[in-house]
């Protein structure tokens, strides 16, 4: 059985969305965590090393970090494939973008939102405006991250793009708005909003 340690309207929502797309049974366990305003506390039931969400247990195996959880799920549950498997031609691209979301996109946009200067050659990520350029250029000619097939990338990166545009952390462009409309029209997105 899959248990997702979840808090509504946080990053763990994307894993709800993914589980709904995969159509596999799971339960959610709502946990509290430390918030930016100082309220909230870590839930001892949450196996995440820093008490954050998401974390996931699957038949005794514990995973943390969204991209790791997504990769585990898309490799294990393949009835409705949500990403290329090991050895398939698009696997390299899939892994690269999965790593790009938390390693580049998020730190770049959060650093800009909090006014942290970008130091070229020191940070492992790129300046936020460059990240926006790369995402716009990539999605201008593609329906989804991997081309014509929707994948977990469109949940992790796409969901992130949607929420960051809503919070004015990412510049709205016609390309990104059309893309966000495409992915959020999916029934599994609506199901996420109810969990």
């Amino acid at each position, binding site marked *: 059985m899959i248990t997702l340690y979840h808090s509504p309207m946080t990053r763990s929502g994307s894993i709800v969305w993914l589980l709904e797309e995969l159509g596999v049974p799971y339960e959610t366990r709502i946990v509290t965590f430390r918030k930016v305003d100082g309220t909230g506390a870590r839930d001892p039931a949450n196996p995440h090393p820093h008490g954050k969400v998401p974390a996931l247990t699957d038949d005794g195996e514990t995973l943390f970090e969204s991209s790791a959880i997504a990769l585990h799920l898309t490799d294990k549950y393949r009835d409705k494939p949500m990403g290329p498997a090991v050895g398939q031609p698009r696997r390299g691209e899939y892994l690269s973008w999965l790593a790009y979301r938390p390693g580049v996109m998020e730190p770049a946009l*959060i650093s800009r939102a909090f006014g942290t200067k970008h130091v070229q050659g020191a940070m492992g990520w790129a300046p936020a405006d460059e990240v926006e350029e790369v995402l716009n250029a990539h999605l201008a000619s593609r329906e989804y991250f991997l081309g014509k097939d929707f994948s977990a990338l469109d949940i992790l990166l796409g969901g992130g793009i949607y929420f960051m545009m809503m919070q004015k952390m990412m510049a709205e462009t016609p390309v990104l708005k059309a893309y966000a409309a495409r992915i959020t029209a999916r029934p599994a997105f609506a199901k996420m909003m109810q969990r």
Partner: protein
Amino acid sequence: MITLYHRPKTRSERFLWLFEELGAPYQIKEVNTRTRDGTGAVDPANPHPHGKVPAISDDGVIVFESPAIALYLTDKFPKAGLGPTVGDPKRGPYLSWLVYYGSVLEPAFMSKFMNVAVPVGTAGWVEIEQVIEFVAKTLSAGPYLLGEKFSAADILYSTTFAMFGPSPVMPKSPVIDAYVKRCTERPAFARAQGSA
């Protein structure tokens, strides 16, 4: 043939080590990158979307970002035993540690380096002291991140700790110092220094 897009003394250097551990054939393509002092430029030959290193090309398949490259390579050369494969009970921890490197460890070091507080609850990462505490706790049960067996995750972490080790942004930890020594004493590490 796999090509590593590389610039000496940067984050791409650790992949020479991984290739040596894997015993896999590779070629190095040295590229220019932008640097802290304003010199250097994006090299048009580099397929990384931001002109950074590392990136690899495997007969035209491009992979970028260290955790992605590490996973791609250990899955491609499973016999080398440098990472648990799909279905192995250690696969979950392996994926978690690989992603945690890019999503938590690196940004945590950078927040400290820039002397800014981590926006808890907004950022996906935490303060470096918490990261070091968690890593040291895991290694106390060690000797490696996944337990008994050395993996590509140890290459990412030990090289990062070695890089930040002498700087004030790195909290002091004898457990981590011993870990770095253990990892970098491996013959493949020395071979990589020779090929760089």
